[in-house]
């Protein structure tokens, strides 16, 4: 099983087994050595990391108490704003953009002396499922670099899976934390909408975006989630965590817990993936959980609803990149309109342009009712059907992705086929629910398979509890051949 890496390192620091500087240097070395192959980081910040490390070492030397995340080397997806550190969204249009303020999640972690190693790769503006729409090229899968790390938070998953970061924060709009976590054989959780502040997260689709942890163990996810799930006055949609620390209930018994299986989630799933999930069902049965089967017919609307709403919001959110105030600006233009046009035409990649056009179309007068409004209505229906599902079960078990990590270049060659692979992850975003991906097996090429546990709103503690019990009984985490050897 995968134990808590954060807890172990924390103990090492407190017991002075190693200094924070030593630990940080180890990770910086590993980044230098392995990032060439993984392409996980797009910006590295070794000086800041070492500065923070010495602050932590001073504290330890003075005998002061340090928090769990203090001094632990980590990373942030490159759409989380960091004051003074460039934040690109892996787009040409923001290649040289450096924020002048910190995202709330980073403010929280910075205050706890988290050691930031750098900013990690992602699909451009979080639009993609393979990390390959990144302006800097895709992040590679640490289990086999001929495969993608997944997306959009591919860089975080690659770095954490390749152990060139202990943990990282990603963002999940339609599966962008869970899918790469699944592809890289690690744990990733998309919290309930509103549990974690979005302030400073560069928006893709505001009503779907949520920041969450990517780690190598369920316990680490719980530790990080406990730290970042705070109410934030800067985000009107923020509510913070409801209830106690999720770590405190992590190891509870799950005898009698009702695990729900919706048949629709298992349709069109590759055999090896379905088999792995079905084996997990047996694990739960053996742990004394009750398995409940039900239908979730509205699931078939989830994908079109997701793409209509996400693209509509994106078309508005990305309107601000016009070359006037910050970021990339086209050269040689006639007037301001020409400048904006050329900036956007050459500053955005194809996938981003595709989604902006799609979103503009579905919001246009004459099409609004047929697309956007209809999608909103269906969104309400899907929300209702999940509400009903949670009347009969505590958590829903499903695959995270219908397959394992694509080979490099495959996803970008057929965008629509790639959109289809988001089928298992998007419902959670549409409904604002929490979902976690946990490794549950490997395909015949040794690429990881992930399963997903979905909970009702603000029931992170339940899915984490179920995930931890599975991990303890039958966890399939396997270190990849990169990074720091602990």
């Amino acid at each position, binding site marked *: 099983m995968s134990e808590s890496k954060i807890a172990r390192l924390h103990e090492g620091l407190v017991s002075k087994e190693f200094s924070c500087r030593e630990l940080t240097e180890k990770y910086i070395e590993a980044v230098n050595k392995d990032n060439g192959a993984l392409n996980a980081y797009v910006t590295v910040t070794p000086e800041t990391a070492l500065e923070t490390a010495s602050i932590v070492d001073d504290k330890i030397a003075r005998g002061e108490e340090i928090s769990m995340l203090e001094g632990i080397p980590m990373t942030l997806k490159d*759409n*989380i*704003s960091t004051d003074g550190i460039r*934040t690109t*969204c892996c787009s040409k249009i*923001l290649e040289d*953009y450096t*924020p*002048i*303020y910190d*995202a709330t999640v980073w403010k929280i972690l910075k205050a706890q002396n988290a050691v930031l190693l750098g900013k990690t790769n992602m699909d451009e503006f979080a639009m993609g499922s393979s990390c390959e729409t990144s302006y800097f090229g895709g992040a590679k899968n640490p289990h086999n670099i001929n495969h993608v790390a997944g997306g959009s938070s591919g860089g975080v998953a690659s770095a954490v899976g390749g152990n060139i970061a202990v943990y990282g924060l990603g963002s999940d709009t339609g599966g962008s934390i869970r899918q790469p976590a699944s592809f890289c054989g690690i744990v990733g959780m998309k919290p309930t909408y509103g549990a974690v502040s*979005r*302030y*400073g*997260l*560069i*928006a893709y*689709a*505001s*009503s779907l975006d949520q920041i969450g942890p990517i780690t190598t163990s369920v316990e680490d996810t719980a530790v990080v989630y406990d730290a970042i799930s705070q109410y934030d*006055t*800067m*985000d*009107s*949609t923020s509510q913070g965590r409801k209830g106690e620390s999720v770590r405190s209930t992590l190891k509870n018994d799950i005898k009698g817990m009702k695990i729900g299986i919706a048949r629709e989630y298992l349709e069109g799933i590759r055999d090896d993936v379905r088999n792995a999930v079905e084996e997990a069902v047996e694990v739960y049965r053996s742990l004394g959980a009750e398995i409940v089967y039900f239908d979730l017919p509205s699931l078939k609307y989830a994908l079109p609803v997701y793409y209509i709403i996400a693209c*509509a*919001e994106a*078309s*508005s959110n990305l*309107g*601000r990149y*016009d070359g*006037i*105030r*910050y970021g990339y600006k086209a050269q040689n233009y006639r007037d*301001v309109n020409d400048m*904006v046009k050329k900036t956007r035409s050459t500053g955005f990649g194809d996938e981003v342009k595709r989604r902006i056009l799609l979103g*503009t179309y579905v*919001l*246009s*007068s004459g099409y*609004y009712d047929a697309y*956007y409004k209809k999608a909103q209505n269906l969104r309400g229906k899907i929300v209702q059907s999940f509400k009903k599902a949670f009347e009969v079960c505590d958590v829903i078990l499903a695959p995270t992705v219908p397959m394992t990590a694509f080979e490099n270049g495959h996803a970008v060659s057929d965008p629509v086929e790639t959109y289809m692979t988001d089928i298992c992850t998007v419902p959670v975003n549409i409904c604002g629910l929490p979902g976690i991906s946990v490794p549950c097996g490997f395909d015949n090429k040794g690429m990881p398979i992930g399963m997903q546990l979905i909970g009702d709103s603000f029931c992170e503690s339940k899915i984490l509890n179920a995930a931890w019990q599975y991990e303890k009984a039958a966890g399939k985490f396997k270190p990849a051949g990169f990074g720091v050897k602990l």
Partner: protein
Amino acid sequence: MKYELVAGFETHVELATDTKIFCSCTTQFGGEPNTHCCPICIGLPGTLPKLNKKVVEYAIRAGLATNCEIAEISKMDRKNYCYPDLPKAYQISQYDKPLCEHGYIQLSNGRKIRILRIHIEEDAGKLVHRRGDTLVDYNRGGVPLIEIVTEPDFRSVDEAKEYVEKLQNIMRYIGVSDCKMQEGSMRCDVNISVRPEGSEKLGTRTEIKNMNSITFIAKAMEYEYGRQVDLIESGEKVIQETLRYDDATNTTSGMRGKEDANDYRYFRDPDLVTINVPRSLVDEIRESLPELPEEKKERYINELGLPEADALLLTKYRKIAEYFESASEGTKTPKTAANFIIGQIFRTVETESEKEQFDVSVSAENLRELITLLDSGKIRMNLAKSTLDKMLETGKKASELIDEKDMGGLDEGALDELCRQAVENNPKAVSDYLAGKEKAVKAMVGFVMKNSRGKADAALAEQKIIKLVKNS
């Protein structure tokens, strides 16, 4: 053929909150360019808006003062369009659930101008054109606005002028805006069309944008009315378009043509939550509303017995009304204070903003002191008037300016003595009076007034003199 003018107004009013609508930057006018800004109001990536509660309250105030219904549930929407003064490429506004709806403002001719809606939104920045360069200043970006939209209920330019003035007065009274048109804190768009008198069908309308003076609004409407009538008379058609009024040439001209076809792609702003307006809040705001100019005017006429013209002048600005009410408090008749204010004090305030501030050199308390002296008979009107002029000049109190020996009425004996002297020293006036020239008595009263330094009661003196003459 005679043509009737049909017009409707969209008025943007900047709210006088201390901070912007979605962040805590100051709303102060002016300032070095881009110094009243933060990551939120310049729309930096990742920032989120947070609705200022005061803005909602001010909009509700405006709604209640114009007889609107206040929505229980409202929301914010995005109006998407690309322009350099709009840093997010969308304006956060309200589309289909405005805070206030279905109100009206009544004009002096008895007609009601219906208010369709009042919604809240953020202002944009400002473009500054300089020597071939265009610069942008976002200080104004995110300043809260309300947009007040009327039905096409105006039938004359005078009605439009009265409406704008009334609206301005109401907004100032309730303290939600200073409505300074020259600073842009109140701006009007006018929709205008013409139709043959008697016709029910609306003509094709044009929209004159962004006017910032009542004079210009009137001129622009007159010009546009004439232009549309001329077009129709000569067999041409009015084209629906957005116009700009040029006050230098007193003409209107097409503004942006292509952008008229703008599709704003409105949708609910996912960054902001539903606005719930509890009825208790609406009641609370209603309670806190001051007496509005219209109500005040009626009260001044009906309860204080002021002539309508006086009531109108005294209620147009809240500060003037407050001044009047304070100065007349406890005096014999409010008309005295009204006369002093309108007749003498008004001469010292000329501009609109001076009237608005009404920061005059004679305080209401000092005016009241003067009126009290007059009421008690200690001084006479002539002296009161000249004293008030001195007070306005020096800022001193009446009691500091009036000599002790000038003060106090004349006792009966002294008056009798003066009247006796008047008769004695004016034999010609006496004989003229007795010969039937009644006016001759005035000369003798004048003698009494002069020799009493204005302290004598002229009417009483006249009575006494007539008695003396008749008995002589």
